[in-house]
């Protein structure tokens, strides 16, 4: 029974990792861009929510709602002013620019908020739980997992059922032909990064309310997100969710065996998948 509990907690933790990963998966799927500052942008959003909560006395969910359009704008501007300039066949410029951005963000946050670890207060929700048979599940983890499923559904809908999604897929397949049809790749990319930052904000809400974070928390989140994307298979949103769950379960099971092995177990699970299925479990794109 204790193992069922461990695995269930891992599945719910996987929801959080999937939220970290979905934005990364979306951006990579559309423009083949790996944003090394992704984790730091999650932490930036968490500080934004924290600021709204502490300065305006808002609840965390209302604060996140206000942060959503702000982060969308951050993503849009970042893509238009910086990242669009470095996209191209050479992978080096976008990697190095986003790596530079990661270091700048971490240190700007350190300068602004000090290196102390913080947490977004969520009141009674922090400790609330619901009993499911003999196991009790936290309300926050359940909300996180529910949000991960909703975000996956929403992205899936945007991607395959809307005009914007058509533009996304067309630009992803062939930007030159897409632009002949009146689609502007530069604006499409800006929209995509904006939407990715909306997902990042939702991830930040749960990151900040469930655990402590500090300005250096970002890179580890980037790594979990990346592992989830690769395990799931590039370009597959449901695969990314599954990848997040695999990392989450591996971590809780590892931690159960030896508390020091939590993070290591997640990485090992990733390496095993990479060994057995180099293209991930549910690959969509061939690249």
């Amino acid at each position, binding site marked *: 029974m204790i193992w069922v509990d461990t695995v269930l907690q891992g599945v719910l933790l996987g929801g959080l990792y999937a939220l970290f990963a979905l934005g990364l998966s979306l951006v990579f799927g559309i423009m083949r861009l790996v944003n090394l500052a992704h984790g730091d942008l999650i932490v930036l959003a968490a500080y934004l929510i924290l600021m709204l909560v502490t300065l305006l006395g808002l609840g965390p969910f209302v604060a996140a709602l206000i942060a959503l359009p702000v982060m969308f704008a951050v993503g849009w501007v970042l893509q238009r002013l910086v990242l669009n300039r470095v996209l191209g066949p050479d992978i080096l410029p*976008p990697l190095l620019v986003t790596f530079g951005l990661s270091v*700048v963000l971490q240190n700007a946050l350190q300068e602004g908020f000090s290196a102390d670890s913080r947490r977004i207060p969520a009141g009674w929700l922090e400790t609330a739980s619901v009993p499911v048979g003999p196991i009790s599940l936290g309300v926050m983890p359940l909300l996180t997992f529910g949000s991960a499923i909703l975000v996956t559904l929403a992205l899936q809908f945007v991607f395959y059922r809307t005009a914007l999604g058509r533009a996304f897929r067309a630009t992803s397949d062939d930007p030159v032909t897409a632009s002949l049809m009146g689609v502007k790749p530069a604006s499409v990319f800006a929209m995509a990064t904006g939407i990715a930052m909306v997902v990042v904000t939702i991830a930040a809400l749960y990151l900040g309310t469930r655990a402590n974070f500090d300005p250096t928390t970002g890179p580890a989140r980037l790594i979990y997100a*990346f592992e989830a994307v690769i395990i799931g298979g590039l370009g597959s949103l449901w695969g990314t969710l599954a990848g997040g769950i695999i990392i989450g379960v591996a971590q809780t099971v590892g931690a159960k065996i030896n508390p020091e092995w939590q993070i290591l177990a997640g990485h090992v699970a990733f390496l095993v998948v990479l060994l057995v299925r180099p293209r991930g479990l549910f690959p969509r794109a061939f690249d």
Partner: protein
Amino acid sequence: MAGYTVTTRTRASQIAAAFALVLLIVAILLPAFASRSLIQDLFFILTMLTLAQYWNLLAGYGGLVSVGQQAFVGFGAYSLFGGAILWGLNPIAGLLLAGVAALIIAVPTAFFAFRLQGAYFAIGTWVVAEVVRLSVAQWKAVGGGTGTSLPRDARDAMWGAEWIEIAFDTRSSAARDILAYWLALLLAVATIGGIYWFLRTKRGLALAALRDNVEAARSVGVDSERMKWVVFLVAAFGTGIAGGLIFLQNGRISPDSAFSVIDWTAFVIFIVVIGGIGTIEGPILGVLIFFGLQTLLADFGSWYLMVLGGLGIVVMLFAPGGLWGLLSDRTGLRLFPIQRRLERRATIEENSDG
């Protein structure tokens, strides 16, 4: 017909070579009259330069953008400490062990990371570095998560330190700094010389061809997969030795310092990018700018890293060839030329075989 010859030498490169030789002699003799803090600063510059040259070989020539070089710095350094603590290995011999140990973990690292295409390779190497860090933190003999110091008798046994102590009439700690400085100088010169030599060979030409155009290089028979392996393993070996040397001089090691992505990868990347990626001169210029900025902004804490990161972004956006690229494009200056040029030979043998 044989009136042409292929050459890489230029007038500037001959002057640079002569100048470099003078500089090297000065650098060797420097400990006789320089202060201890200058020697320590130069040690730092030389080791960072070495790391930067290897990263440049990987990313600038091999197209392998690794964000996981700290795996080799850290594992190399830990092997040196492990060798000294467990087997009483002399730390100077331990440097070779550091290189070999880094080479050994580079094989599985490459095996995993090469499965990831392009940009994902970068984070793949980072994951492997994290796995190595977390595993080493479980190794209780070298202090686990908190780290350990180099044992006193291992420190005192360092080959050559005693001779320096007598010859320069200094305390033993200063003598060890001088020894570490000489080793760093040797490593940096061997690295630059080795990479320069390699790039001028047939294989080096193949590597430069791959850098410029993978498809075109493959079409004339360059084995890109094999070149990737060669470059990755060579870089790991050199990075491991540099890591061992850095922590030998430091005297203390911990998983967080030895596997720091900021110290051993971020700084190195900025040095190469700001100086000029894909050239040997770039990292040399870059490390000087890096050290200058660090000295200038030492009192401003995290502002220093912000400036460095910002500068890296600006350079990548507006001058992807780095500062050396700007300079050499304007002036045509090349201190380590590897371009092969056809030159008309000045002899009058044209009629004899024509």
